[in-house]
């Protein structure tokens, strides 16, 4: 059950003043606020269970290990992964993409082979592939988008060729909010034998994600976007892939035996988790997953839809506002420009009214090149935002317009 006021009150960061005004936090796509439960879990680890994991016989190490592994289980449940062993703790989506590029895809491509991404990708799902292409001579291909900011899925059959060796597509666009039809995308790719990774950075905070139903080969999760700690995240991979992949980093914890001649690697997921991990981060992320499940992802989806409709209607009344991204299926993310006022000026002016939005290209420069603008103002909502937040946003935009008159 989502109890609007109760669950909003769980986020201490929301209850503060900025520039003398109550904070209206609409930069959730950049990073979300964290609930008390996550903060408590982090504190509890540092205060009551502080020890390194997987390597001590002493009690604290044991309980720290349990907390960390339980967090992995919570995340497996959130994503409906077949087993928690299919989840690798990472720093975030960026690391997850790089890991897959280097340990799964690199050995599968040679000169002239193709890797397919989409026009809607975040730079973190573009640059690692460009690096890989430089290393291997592979070629990056892009699924186009239409004027509404929707993926041109109809072109997929032509873009998937016998040269295509891998596809990586964003589930929900951080810049436009577009929810891509990823299940259909996966089906089409698999029909041509192409493995698929989905970038779930913006999906897990908003949607019920079922990696088995999606049948994706890899799925990336960014902890800080889903109410968890910064520098935390997980990569889901199908067990058959993870078992076959070489390690990404070498070091402690990922080995079962080391001599100077050779090393025997530990089993998955330890094979991919060299060194002391972000223990508190993983535990905090597990708490975030539990928090979201306690609300229920269906309830979060429903609240998102309410806020989206309300905000869409309210923003439509702002004179001179041009909305970028008008996909039929979208999450409550609004990218817009106002005629005659640069996005940064809007950002500064509405910050003065306590409204936090992001301005710029949101690490998706190709999207803005498509629309022929340098960037936008982006208001991105979470379930804890309110209709009043929308009203204050609109009022502050009207004040900015007034100022520039």
């Amino acid at each position: 059950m989502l109890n609007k006021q109760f669950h909003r009150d769980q986020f201490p960061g929301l209850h503060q003043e900025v520039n003398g005004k109550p904070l209206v936090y609409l930069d959730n796509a950049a990073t979300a606020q964290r609930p008390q439960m996550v903060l408590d879990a982090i504190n509890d680890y540092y205060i009551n269970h502080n020890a390194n994991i997987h390597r001590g016989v002493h009690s604290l190490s044991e309980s720290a290990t349990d907390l960390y592994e339980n967090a992995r289980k919570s995340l497996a449940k959130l994503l409906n992964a077949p087993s928690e062993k299919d989840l690798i703790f990472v720093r975030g989506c960026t690391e997850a993409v790089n890991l897959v590029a280097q340990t799964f895809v690199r050995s599968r491509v040679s000169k002239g082979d193709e890797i397919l991404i989409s026009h809607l990708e975040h730079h973190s799902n573009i640059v690692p592939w460009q690096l890989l292409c430089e290393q291997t001579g592979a070629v990056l291909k892009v699924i186009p988008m239409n004027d509404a900011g929707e993926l041109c899925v109809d072109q997929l059959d032509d873009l998937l060729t016998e040269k295509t060796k891998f596809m990586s597509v964003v589930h929900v666009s951080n810049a436009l909010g577009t929810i891509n039809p990823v299940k259909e995308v996966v089906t089409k790719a698999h029909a041509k034998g192409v493995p698929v990774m989905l970038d779930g950075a913006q999906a897990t905070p908003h949607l019920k994600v079922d990696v088995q139903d999606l049948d994706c080969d890899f799925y990336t999760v960014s902890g800080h976007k889903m109410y968890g700690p910064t520098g935390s995240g997980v990569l889901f991979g199908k067990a058959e892939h993870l078992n076959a992949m070489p390690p990404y980093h070498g070091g402690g914890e990922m080995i079962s035996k080391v001599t100077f001649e050779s090393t025997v690697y530990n089993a998955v997921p330890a094979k991919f988790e060299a060194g002391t991990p972000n223990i508190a981060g993983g535990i905090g992320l597990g708490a975030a997953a539990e928090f979201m499940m306690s609300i229920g992802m269906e309830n979060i989806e429903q609240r998102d839809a309410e806020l989206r409709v309300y905000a869409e209607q309210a923003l439509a009344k702002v004179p001179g506002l041009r909305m970028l991204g008008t996909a039929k299926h979208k999450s409550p993310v609004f990218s817009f420009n106002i005629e005659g006022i640069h996005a940064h000026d809007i950002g500064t002016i509405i910050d003065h009214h306590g409204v936090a939005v992001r301005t710029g290209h949101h690490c998706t420069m190709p999207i803005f090149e498509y629309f022929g603008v340098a960037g936008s103002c982006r208001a991105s909502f979470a379930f804890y935002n309110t209709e009043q937040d929308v009203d204050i946003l609109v009022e502050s935009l009207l004040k900015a317009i007034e100022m520039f008159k």
Partner: protein
Amino acid sequence: MTDLSKLYKQTILEHNRNPRNYGRPDHWTHHSEGLNAICGDLVHVYLTIEGDVISAINYDGESCAISMASASMMTEFIKGRAVDDALSKFELFCQLMAKGSDIQRIDALEDVNNLITVKKFPSRIKSATLCWHAMAAAIKGQPTATTE
């Protein structure tokens, strides 16, 4: 009046409505492009240097009102100055705008001091300094400049 309305109303908007020396000229001897990758601000500065005097200075680009107004003010202030003088004024402007410094005014910068309110919005200081970096880079023969 709040700092914000002061910043926009008194200084910035006036220059936005009546930009001085705006637009790409037909001829120039020195040019640099200022790019603030994080914000996406882009300013081109075009100089004509005759002997050691900047006889003409123009700008254009695509960026926020603060950045555009700063460029407009800069061109007014720099036009007709010797190259060495322009570079020393650039140094002074950097000192004036340095994040965290207490300097509120540098007399030698005359009307440019009106930009001082920008310092109250630290995230926007780079918008104000971008064109100055581009101007200095153009003099030094560097094709691009950033504030990073």
